């Protein structure tokens, strides 16, 4: 008995497993919630919904930059190369990344303004055999991983809940995809548009007219504070004191300074950063409590620490006398804690997020991606309406089937089998945590369509004339199955380019259709044959 009806048994097992996956208390809700509510769309299930059906914003964009692979650097090549390429291209050393392994290196430049030709010739003048053809648009997976991590940090630091960041690739090109529910599109864009590189620059007056060689170029596009630029103020010098966020070990939430009332971000430097920072402070006179005036942006000169974000000076301030004494005595090295200020609370908040989350390795190129925003209430409406659409489609199928067969014993199991297919598929979606979008709904409806087609083939084959013996049943079932299997194979082949090429939003549709067809052919449709046999024959 069991041996004969194993197909039905298998179907029951899968339906139960899907029910567990859908309704077992987990992420979404519980059995109790479902019992009281009974409505699949309001969230008692473990199903997850994507942007289309839950609302929110999504931005997809590539990182700007170029990659040269297989640069033959030998065992020692790396460090030198970064500096050489950076100075050739006139970009910061933080914008060049060299990863070495087995004597060859992958060199990336994190800028949208460098041409492939310029990058290749920079590597050539550094003494490496690189042709323009070796340089490709785009950045490595490692860089994308870093970017994803930083963006996730930024989103959680800024208090947005439920956001997700991931790398998606489409036709060999990588994109960062950022999704945040209930978030206004422009706010999200603002949060991720900037690279958020924060560095601290020491700005100070120098005696005499000769600019020492350790001085760096002017900082920021608004170089007004730099007195020497217009020749009226004193000669000044810029030296990077802290090159990036990596110098900070701990960043505290924004608070108000008790004396000045300004919003400040308390920070602690790392051990590695504290010593060179203190030495620079001592060397350039920041350790003298008398040098507390800062003239940056107010006539120039003095001793200032500039907070520079993505090349813009966002804040300038003199060193507090207590802090200066700490630099002088060297106590600061052991307790490298100070606070960096900002002009207003929102700027301080932004600075805190940048310091805490880190900087994007390369800027996002928002001009070459996509963005999407759906009002949550509209998405909710889509969710309900697409369920209704699916049900209406099922109803249409039912009517067609009843008109054709006029035999409930054939038609009812057919519909139940078709629905169980969708149910198992929903269980699959819940199990792998697939966020359902409209394209998946289209996939579900496609599965109902192909499913019922196959059930019609089985029914017609078996109902040809009386099925008297098990042997006749078996041979007819096998013949029906050849057609079904062949049709399923073509559907899988037709959909697999989409699933593999991952054409953005159609991937979900292709995956649902393929998995649905497989579930149908392997589990539900054979079971229907078995049900028919039970109902129409005595054995």
């Amino acid at each position: 008995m069991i041996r004969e009806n194993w197909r039905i048994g298998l179907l029951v097992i899968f339906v139960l497993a899907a029910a567990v996956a859908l309704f077992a208390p987990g992420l979404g809700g519980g059995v109790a919630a479902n019992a009281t509510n009974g409505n699949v769309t309001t969230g008692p299930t473990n199903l997850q919904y994507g942007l289309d059906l839950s609302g929110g914003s999504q931005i997809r964009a590539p990182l700007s930059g170029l990659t040269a692979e297989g640069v033959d650097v030998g065992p020692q090549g790396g460090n030198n190369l970064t500096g050489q390429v950076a100075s050739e291209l006139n970009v910061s050393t933080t914008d060049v990344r060299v990863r070495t392994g087995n004597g060859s290196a992958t060199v990336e430049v994190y800028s949208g303004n460098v041409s492939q030709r310029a990058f290749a010739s920079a590597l050539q003048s550094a003494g490496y055999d690189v042709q323009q053809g070796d340089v490709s648009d785009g950045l490595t997976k490692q860089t994308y991983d870093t970017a994803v991590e930083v963006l996730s940090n930024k989103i959680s630091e800024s208090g947005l809940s439920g956001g997700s960041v991931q790398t998606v690739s489409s036709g060999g090109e990588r994109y960062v995809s950022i999704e945040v529910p209930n978030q206004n599109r422009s706010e999200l864009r603002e949060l991720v548009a900037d690279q958020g590189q924060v560095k601290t620059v020491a700005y100070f007056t120098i005696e005499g007219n000769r600019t020492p060689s350790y001085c760096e170029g002017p900082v920021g596009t608004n170089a007004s504070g730099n007195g020497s630029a217009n020749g009226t103020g004193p000669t000044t010098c810029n030296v990077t004191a802290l090159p990036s966020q990596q110098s900070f070990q701990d960043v505290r939430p924004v608070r108000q300074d008790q004396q000045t009332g300004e919003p400040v971000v308390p920070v602690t430097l790392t051990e590695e950063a504290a010593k060179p920072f203190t030495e620079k402070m001592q060397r350039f006179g920041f350790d003298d409590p008398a040098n507390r005036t800062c003239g940056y942006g107010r006539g120039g000169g003095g001793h200032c620490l500039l907070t520079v974000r993505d090349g813009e000076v966002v804040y300038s301030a003199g060193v507090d006398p207590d802090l200066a004494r700490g630099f002088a005595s060297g106590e600061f090295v052991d307790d490298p804690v100070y606070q960096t200020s900002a002009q207003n609370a929102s700027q301080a908040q932004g600075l805190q997020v940048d310091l805490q989350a880190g900087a994007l390795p390369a800027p996002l190129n928002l001009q070459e991606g996509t963005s999407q925003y759906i009002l949550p209430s509209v998405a909710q409406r889509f969710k309900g309406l697409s369920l209704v659409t699916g049900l209406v489609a099922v109803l249409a199928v039912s009517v067609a089937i009843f008109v054709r067969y006029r035999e409930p014993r054939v038609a009812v199991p057919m519909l139940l089998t078709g629905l169980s297919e969708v149910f198992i598929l929903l269980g699959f979606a819940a199990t792998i945590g697939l966020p359902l979008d409209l394209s998946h709904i289209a996939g579900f409806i496609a599965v109902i369509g192909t499913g019922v087609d196959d059930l019609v083939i089985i029914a017609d084959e078996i109902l040809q004339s009386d099925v008297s013996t098990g042997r006749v049943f078996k041979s007819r079932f096998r013949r029906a199955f050849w057609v079904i299997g062949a049709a399923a194979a073509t559907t899988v082949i037709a959909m697999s380019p989409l699933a593999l090429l991952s054409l953005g939003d159609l991937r979900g549709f292709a995956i649902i259709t393929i998995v649905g067809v497989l579930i149908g052919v392997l589990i539900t449709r054979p079971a229907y044959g078995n049900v028919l046999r039970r109902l129409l024959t005595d054995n």
Partner: protein
Amino acid sequence: MAALDVLAVDYTDYTDRQLAAIPLVVLVLALAVLGGWFLMTGAPVTPGIEFTGGTELQVTTGAGQAQIQDTFAALPAVDGQPTVTPTAGGNTFIVTTQSTDTDALTSAAESAGYTVESVQETSASFGSDVQQLGVLGLAAAFVGMALLVFVLFRSFVPSIAVILSAFSDIVVPLALMNLFGIELSLGTVAALLMLIGYSVDSDILLNNHVLKRRGDFYESTYRARRTGVTMTLTSISAMAVMAIVASKFVFNIPLLSQVGLVLVMGLAVDLMNTYLLNVSLLRWYKFEGIAR
């Protein structure tokens, strides 16, 4: 089913040429439409903003269509006239423009007092990548299907019959899309791919009945047709209902209605191709092709 009786034609009354003529003429006409479209617009079909790049906004407002048009046309970012299409409720409009300056568009909409329901923006470069992939995916799917069909039947004429009718099942809906003003979108590409799977079902069924089973040609064809027409009509009814229910006149879920509409067209064409073109090729093969 009533439609079954309509299709219960007596094939013996017609020659192979007569049977094949109708679907072939339709296919040639469809190709002519696509060719003409290519000459006129530079592309065989009209790609939507998902492929050309641009922004689609859905706004709700009490304002009229012309007023909305003016609001967006006045923006410096918008080059030329944006398209404004009203939908079901009467208060919801879909605005489409080639501009990707979404910030400007949404803030213009908000300052005019419209509620922005959704914004979808695709950059031109991303769109052209997606389009390339879409064409590649469609071609790969078709070639994969063709190879599989050859493996399944291992004879030339029946395989070609399946492939030709699948080709026609895709080309005719593409031409109809042009005539009905439906743009190529991700949804319609998905539907076209789905058509490859759907259309081959009934062809495989027919070939299987005629080639792999004992019995008279007309008897086999009749059985295959009975099953196949039921399948296709069931699918057509499901898709037609989906296309209507999801259309902008009822629920306004564009993706689902596009998929439904393209599938209805494709499946209807498939009925013609399978039971006229495919049958005639198979009959020729069975009675003359094998004998030679």
